[in-house]
């Protein structure tokens, strides 16, 4: 009887056991190991030696690439996050319009979001090719001489933004389902009061979806700050390191230069940057996110 009681108490823990083991082995363990490594000179070939804050001091005082990569990444995020958000929201509004066949367009807009970053880099690399790329051909038809997108440091970052924005479908879909759930009578009431379409958008749609905007800002900020696949494959960090993103800086320090300790310190600095930026967004949210919907949602549970 006693044994049975103990088993009953242990049951929930048995269910969540896979995650607990996974958390310890694949998350907490690596996290701590990475923190420890950041205080060592740690290369794959030689024995690790304790370095104290050496890696951090080197990064902040002796490595100009650290600042450059950080600046490029922040610049990318500053362009990409708002741009992606506005495009996603505009598209979501577009595919909620009451016209026939609109779901076909929903499908079309989402398709690039299921395409691998490897494929995206190949497809866009071909379109943006400076010599025989189709984009520059189209531009030449309207009398514009297109730049060598991927070879010109002034345009390479823009090329990455363009290729990344192709996958906007995921965010669009999140906005879409949220907008779809807004009760229609809210709009009807507003239009009786004489509100225009634009007025309805800013006075009803936007306030109701602010929690979703917050969600999208945070997730896209985190992924923008970690962008790596596209820069590795589309520009390789070039030209002249103009797209040498922070993710690439960490990756190369670790796996090209075999400075695992230094790269761990790099990664921790980015982790802290992400934590600071997301907490700023969270803090600011009390000023612009409306929680009525969350109150309703809470009641349902």
């Amino acid at each position: 009887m006693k044994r049975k009681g103990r088993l009953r108490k242990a049951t929930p823990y048995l269910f969540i056991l896979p995650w607990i083991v996974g958390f310890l082995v694949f998350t907490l363990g690596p996290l701590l190991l990475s923190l420890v490594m950041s205080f060592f000179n740690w290369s794959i070939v030689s024995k690790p030696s304790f370095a104290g804050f050496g890696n951090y001091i080197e990064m902040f005082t002796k490595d100009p690439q650290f600042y450059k990569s950080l600046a490029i990444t922040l610049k990318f995020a500053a362009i990409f996050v708002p741009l992606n958000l506005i495009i996603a929201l505009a598209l979501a509004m577009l595919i909620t319009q009451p016209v026939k066949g609109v779901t076909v367009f929903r499908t079309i807009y989402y398709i690039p979001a299921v395409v691998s970053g490897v494929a995206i880099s190949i497809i866009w690399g071909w379109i943006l090719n400076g010599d025989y790329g189709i984009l520059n051909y189209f531009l030449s038809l309207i009398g514009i001489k297109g730049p060598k997108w991927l070879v010109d440091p002034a345009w390479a970052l823009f090329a990455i933004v363009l290729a990344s924005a192709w996958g906007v479908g995921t965010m669009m879909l999140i906005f879409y389902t949220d907008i779809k759930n807004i009760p229609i009578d809210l709009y009807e009431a507003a239009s009786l009061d004489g509100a225009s379409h634009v007025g309805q958008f800013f006075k009803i749609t936007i306030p109701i979806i602010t929690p979703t905007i917050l969600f999208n800002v945070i997730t896209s900020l985190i992924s923008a700050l970690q962008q790596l696949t596209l820069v590795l494959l589309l520009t390789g960090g070039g030209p002249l390191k103009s797209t040498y993103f922070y993710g690439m800086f960490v990756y190369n320090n670790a796996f090209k230069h075999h400075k695992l300790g230094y790269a761990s310190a790099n990664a921790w600095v980015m982790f802290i940057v992400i934590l600071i930026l997301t907490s700023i967004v969270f803090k600011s949210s009390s000023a612009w996110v409306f929680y009525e919907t969350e109150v309703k949602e809470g009641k349902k549970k």
Partner: protein
Amino acid sequence: MKTSKKYKVIMYVILGAVAVYFLFPLLWMILTAFKTEAEAQGYPPKFLPDKWLISNFVTAWQSQEFTRFLMNSVLVTVMTTIGQILSCSLVAYGFARYNFRFKNILFMILLATMMIPWDVTMIPMYMEFKAFGWINSLKTLIVPSFFGSAYYIFLLRQFLMGIPKDFEEAARIDGANAFEIYSRIFMPMMKPQLILIGILNILTVWNDYLGPLIFLQDRSKYTLALGLASFKGVHETQIIPLMCITIIMIIPPVLVFIAAQKYIVEGKSGAIK
């Protein structure tokens, strides 16, 4: 809402124009793949190939061990999907249907792990897998999936929270044990949600580039994404074979998405709250 004719025309024009941005790159890739190298690199560009060279695909596929890469990708995708469905459903069930000590704090930790950037864990993961002797093995990609993934657990748990308690009570009276209640009653109920996380996992794993890049070195272990990327490295000047393999690689996820759209569109609404 009023829909005048003028409004409709304007809408279709806008919808169509936007569709060009999303579809044209794919269309252009497909058209290019059937051309000859000379045609593809001619200027001004020709839209349609003179002759549709289907043989381009065969040549491209045979130029490297793509069949092996494909098998590796299929193996990893199938195994991780099984792993995620089993582990995430167990864990989500535990969090949603039981009360136990430390439940809330553990769930908070689970949610917090979604915020950890990959940069931080990739290096120690590499060290760990090296210590296990797994580097260069598909195990590095498969095994972690059997221990659950925070986002999928969260999705399933949100669904399970909404089911009334009566189900367990009735089953318990019938003499079912805890595991049977999970496997015989709740697993079937979770089917649409399990399909959703299965699809999301298939798309993620099939497309993953960084994981294979770091953990796999031997060509024979490459996945299709990694094989294609390395193909790009050596074929920078030959665009045709590259386009052919890219097309082959994106067909499965696009088909999966179109077939299972319903689950994704519905699932996204549960994702945020």
